């Protein structure tokens, strides 16, 4: 479920790219500070976007500083500074989601991968406990998402909407927690719902071939006819929903980068996913 929210690098300005990297490096450093050196390997683009987005909403980014990269001491990195706890919140989301993803992987993957996941689990569960102590609401949202996902998949009449609902409402609640007013809450919650729906459906579309082979649950598996249209239509609709709500915001910080993600990055992810499908069908 990771890595679908990303920028389209070729369309970013250089200074925007630098700013984006500094959020990325800032989050990496925060993971190192809050959890441990090893937890830096969990760093994801989705959480980078989350950090950037909530920083932009709260206008809490206060500048940049330079330092050395832990992985490559020869390299100088720029780190983004933040007045409030956006970074450590994003780090908590990052380790919490990684933990729940691992639990999910243990339950539905093959022997070797499962063994590997089991070996990593003690680390992740320690970090997750730490995150839980700091941000219990994030952990309980994520736990709720996993629970309702399992319930939805067991339900006999689970369609696309029901399957996508847990992820969508997770992100929706996560973002609307940042709101200061009722109007903001409604806008953030729709952005979150659309994005979450997109991530879930993109992931499902990406795994469709694999899931058909292995017999794992996939919401698109039951839609027999015109599967490609169904996938494309639903992904587009989720983006339209996000975009309509996003338009009502007047962001200033990181504006160019967030515009890039929503207008270009996500559509290109969709293109990639639906595009590979076309190739597969031709080769069959």
């Amino acid at each position, binding site marked *: 479920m990771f890595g679908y929210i990303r920028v389209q690098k070729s*369309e970013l300005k250089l200074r925007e790219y630098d700013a984006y990297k500094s959020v990325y490096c800032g989050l990496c450093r925060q993971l190192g500070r809050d959890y441990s050196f090893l937890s830096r390997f969990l760093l994801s683009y989705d959480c980078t976007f989350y950090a950037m987005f909530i920083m932009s909403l709260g206008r809490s980014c206060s500048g940049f500083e330079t330092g050395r990269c832990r992985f490559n001491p020869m390299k100088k990195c720029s780190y983004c500074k933040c007045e409030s706890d956006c970074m450590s919140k994003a780090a908590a989301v990052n380790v919490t989601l990684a933990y729940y993803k691992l639990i999910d992987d243990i339950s539905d993957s093959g022997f070797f991968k499962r063994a590997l996941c089991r070996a990593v689990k003690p680390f992740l569960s320690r970090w997750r406990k730490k995150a839980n102590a700091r941000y219990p609401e994030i952990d309980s949202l994520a736990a709720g998402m996993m629970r309702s996902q399992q319930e939805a998949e067991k339900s006999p009449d689970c*369609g*696309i*909407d*029901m399957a996508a*609902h847990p992820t*969508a409402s997770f992100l929706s609640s996560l973002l609307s927690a940042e709101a200061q007013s009722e*109007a903001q809450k*409604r*806008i953030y919650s*729709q952005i979150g*719902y*659309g994005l979450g*729906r997109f991530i879930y459906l993109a992931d499902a579309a990406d795994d469709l071939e694999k899931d058909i082979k292995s017999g794992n649950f996939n919401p698109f598996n039951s839609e027999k006819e015109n599967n490609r249209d*169904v996938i*494309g*239509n*639903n992904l*587009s*609709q*989720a*983006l*339209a*929903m996000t*975009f*309509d*709500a996003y*338009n*009502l915001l007047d962001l200033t910080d990181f504006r160019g980068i967030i515009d890039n993600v929503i*207008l*270009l990055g996500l*559509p*290109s992810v*969709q*293109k990639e996913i639906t595009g590979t499908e076309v190739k597969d069908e031709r080769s069959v």
Partner: protein
Amino acid sequence: MKDPYEVLGVAPGASDDEVKAAYRKLAKKYHPDNYQDSPLADLAEEKMKEVNEAYDYIVNSRKAGGSGSAGSAGSGYSGYSSSGYSANSQYVNVRMMIQQGNLDEAERILDSETGDHTAEWYFLRGMCYYRRGWAQQAVQHFQRAVQMEPNNMEYQQALNNMSRQQNYGYGGYNTTGMNNNMGCSACDICSAIMCADCLCSCCR
């Protein structure tokens, strides 16, 4: 009132044409058509009002100051036509609840009905799904409603709105021209090679 220039995103020294262009862009962005049936329609309406007021203010104040003519300040997009709900609806209260965002109650009433459902039932049930973001179910319900009553404009409009969203495409909303097509077609390659070939014969 907020600074009208800030609302339109232009500098106070901007020319009349710049102000007009900025106004047009924003009016397009918040246009009611984009927010048809959306739970955020009222927020878009507020934004639209703000933009209209700012534009009117600037145009009028410039006219008074005699700095050029900006034409009439008739800001075009003011009317949010509240959907023409048929008066003989048997679900007046349900429609009301959906408008107010009380989806749980609306769904409870709709779901408590048994037997064959009318087209309006499918339409309203679809609207509940839509407001929740359950697009797939919403489309199916709207389709059913349109099938049963093909002449009803309200149902047709809801379905059209859904297909507009489904055809969002790869940044289809994006009219800012960020998507420069930098591609290179087979023709481009051919003509480039031909040009290069011409140069070759020059050297001989």
